[in-house]
């Protein structure tokens, strides 16, 4: 259950954003679509608790996240939210597997079997001991999905996961995300300006 009411945000009183209310039930996915500069990333950061909204409420799985302090928010995010960024980020000094182990350590959920399960499901098990900068672009994207879902989040937030991809790869990535979300019982919210994704989602909001 994800519910927002009257979220507003501004950067230094200069750029103002007002976001439509969102409400999705358990097992539902959502596509949020909008053009550049309309505050897509801001909304994603608000939902992830990386930014604090100036007014309104954000309720994730029964918890009002604007009431949490910085430390509680970090813990809540680690336990419940996985984020897939437009560009893949990793800790470069670590291998793929070590990155996943680090994520587990931070969320206090050590489970080596799960790492192998996820890597296998994403088809990159043989890359687990590679440094992340040795991966191909496609492998990097898979690895970053692995990083987002390794701690069994209830919500996966994806920021422009397909914007730089051709049609074929766009299709492949969004299917992969949806498959992983349902396989590991997570809800998926994708924020994008990419209209090609509309056909993959039953529910969508336009900013």
């Amino acid at each position, binding site marked *: 259950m994800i519910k927002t009411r009257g979220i507003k945000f501004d950067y230094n009183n200069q750029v103002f954003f007002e976001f439509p209310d969102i409400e999705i039930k358990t097992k539902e996915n959502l596509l949020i679509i909008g053009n550049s500069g309309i505050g897509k990333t801001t909304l994603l*950061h608000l939902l992830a608790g990386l930014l604090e909204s100036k007014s309104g409420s954000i309720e994730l799985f029964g918890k009002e996240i604007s009431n949490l302090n910085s*430390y509680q928010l*970090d813990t809540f*995010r680690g336990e419940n939210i996985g984020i897939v960024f437009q560009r893949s*980020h990793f800790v470069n*000094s670590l291998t793929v597997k*070590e990155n996943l182990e*680090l994520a587990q350590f931070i969320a206090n959920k050590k489970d080596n079997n799960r790492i192998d399960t996820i890597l296998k499901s994403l088809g990159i098990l043989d890359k687990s001991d590679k440094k992340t900068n040795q991966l191909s672009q496609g492998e990097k994207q898979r690895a970053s999905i692995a990083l987002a879902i390794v701690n069994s989040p209830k919500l996966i937030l994806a920021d422009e996961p397909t914007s730089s991809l051709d049609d074929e790869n766009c299709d492949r990535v969004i299917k992969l995300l949806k498959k992983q979300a349902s396989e590991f019982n997570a809800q998926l919210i994708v924020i994008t300006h990419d209209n090609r994704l509309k056909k993959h989602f039953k529910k969508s909001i336009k900013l």
Partner: protein
Amino acid sequence: MNIFKLSIKNIISKPLNSILSLALLILGIGIISLLLQLNSLIKTQMDNNLKGIDMVVGAKGSPLQLILSAVYHIDSPTGNISVEDAEEIKNNRMVGSSIDLLYGDNYKGYRIVGTEDKFLDLYNAKIKDGKKWNAPFEVVVGAKIYSKLNINLDDELVSSHGLRETGESHVNQSFKVVGLLEPSNSVVDQLIITSPQSIWDLHDEHDHDDEDHEEHHDDEDHDEHEHDHDDEDHDEHEHDHDDEDHDEHEHGDKEITAMLIKFKSPMNIIQFPRQINENTNLQAAVPSYEISRLFKLFGFGIETLTYLAYLIILVSGFSLFINLFNSMRERKYEMALIRTLGASRSQLSVMVIFESLILTISGFLLGLLVSRLGVMFVSSLMEESLNYSLSSLYILNEEFWLLGLSILIGLISSLIPAIQVYKMNISEILADE
């Protein structure tokens, strides 16, 4: 995986980033630790050899030279003094005990000392194999010498004149090894010890062919003749006539090189040496005073070098700060990622501090290692030129202080980067991509 392991992986994955700061720190710590070690080792070594010696009496010259030659056996003697003059001092009521020393010859660079039995007791040196020297030309050999030159009992040693190996050899006469000493961790380890008579005998034969002959006609000899009128000396005179050093006796008397003296009361250390220096043609020097003077001279150099080393450590801290600061900027996306995975601000700050501390503590350990290698190196140099060696693997108290300093440098250098990471705005960084 945990934060500490992550810090280590971060350092290892980009070794070039931290190598300069680390090298500077190793250099700084290494220099200070080496100076501390050498200072303490030389002091202990010097003090060890100083026990039981309140005053040294020898020929006029530099007091420091007298101490270095008579106590530490690392300098040339100032000259010789006559047995009569030495006797006079021995008979003074302030003198508790005394030991005669005769030196000026060597075997392969190791000094041969003619002395009394008491000499061994002074350094607590014990015979390991064989017996003490007794008859002329019997010698006992110090631990370092026999193990290094592979000398055994009953070996014959041919000595050379002077204190260098290159001196003229006393080919006519050789010494016989009758005893080997246990290691005593004092100067005795690097000496070959025999009776005074051996040295006298050796040089009587030797001096015949020498121009030394003329020297004995000098004013010194005139003094001797006057002395000879005394009864005491007369007896000795007769006695010596029966000895083989017939010729020597006609020209003068026996000489010794120096005399180690222990007072009856420590109070005498102030007055007695001055009396000797002012009223006789002998020189008296107080080892503890001369050595502390020597250390004061060294001290200035050591102090300068120490300040330089602290400066290097300071620069290493600054370099460490810059490299952490840059590395955090380079890795800002990584940091943001780790935060989105649920890490708290303080966990990231701890990671930065760990990275800094791992570097400074390994710098400290490597610095200590370097200083130990330095001690070995200096020791081998001293061994070569002075037949002296040092060794120690102890950690000094001051070195624990250096560990504290390294940790402090690590904390201070990482302070600003850690705060920077703590205050990082992850949303802004991630929106920036």
